[in-house]
């Protein structure tokens, strides 16, 4: 099983967080801590690029919901991008596709800001 990988970069005024591997009950707390730091910095524009994400559980979804809430309360916006077919289908089945702002590519997501 591939464990969680993540990296942060800046594209102009937008923070791009690239996530890969597995967002599960074991790995999500670490990502939650990292994303909390991003919120505390007052970051307002975030793309979460999920092309390399292979598995997401309720723990991972909870981290995304919490992060979105924190950034939104700061007056910012979070969008998701580049989800693979597997994750997209799970988002659709669970109804999350209608909650998050989602783009098919990072380039299109960056244009949302």
């Amino acid at each position, binding site marked *: *099983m591939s464990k969680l990988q993540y990296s942060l970069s800046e594209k102009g005024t937008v923070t791009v967080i690239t996530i890969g591997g597995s967002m*599960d*009950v*074991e790995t999500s707390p670490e990502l939650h801590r990292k994303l909390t730091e991003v919120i505390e910095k007052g970051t307002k524009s975030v793309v979460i690029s999920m092309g390399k994400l292979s*598995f997401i*559980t*309720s*723990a991972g*979804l*909870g*981290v995304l*919901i*919490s992060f*979105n*809430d*924190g950034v939104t309360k700061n007056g910012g916006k979070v969008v998701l991008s580049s989800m693979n077919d*597997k994750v997209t*289908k*799970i988002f659709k*089945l*669970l*109804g*999350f596709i209608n*909650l998050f702002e989602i783009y098919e590519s990072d380039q299109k997501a960056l244009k949302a800001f």
Partner: protein
Amino acid sequence: MPERATITFSVTYDGNALDRTRSGLLAFLKGNAIDTDAISEIELATYEVLANIIEHSPAAERGEEILCECALLQNRVEVRIEHRGSRFDLTEGSFPDLREHFSKGKSSGLGIYIVRTLMDAVEYAYTGNRNVIRLVKEL
């Protein structure tokens, strides 16, 4: 209906066991040419049930391993998860309001919501101090 194949996992109360079980379940389902979408849904629902048991079981109830058995039948997959412990019926209760959860940054109850949404049937029984959960995915 005759079983085509079965596999059984003994799951200990730790995160590594979750990964091992998920990996073994994936290999079993892929090896039996189960539909890719169904595999993803069974993988996630099974993980959520096991993670919920591991996360919420008190130390005193962790003496025995969790039994997880996956059976392939002619037109469905059944996963049976059994563990000794306090009664916890994941078929009870209403679904969380996803939009309200999202707007308030809440994530409680998502695991059970996932299991009940992805599976075609979720059955629960409590007998002899053992929780028995049966997940059914039609193929």
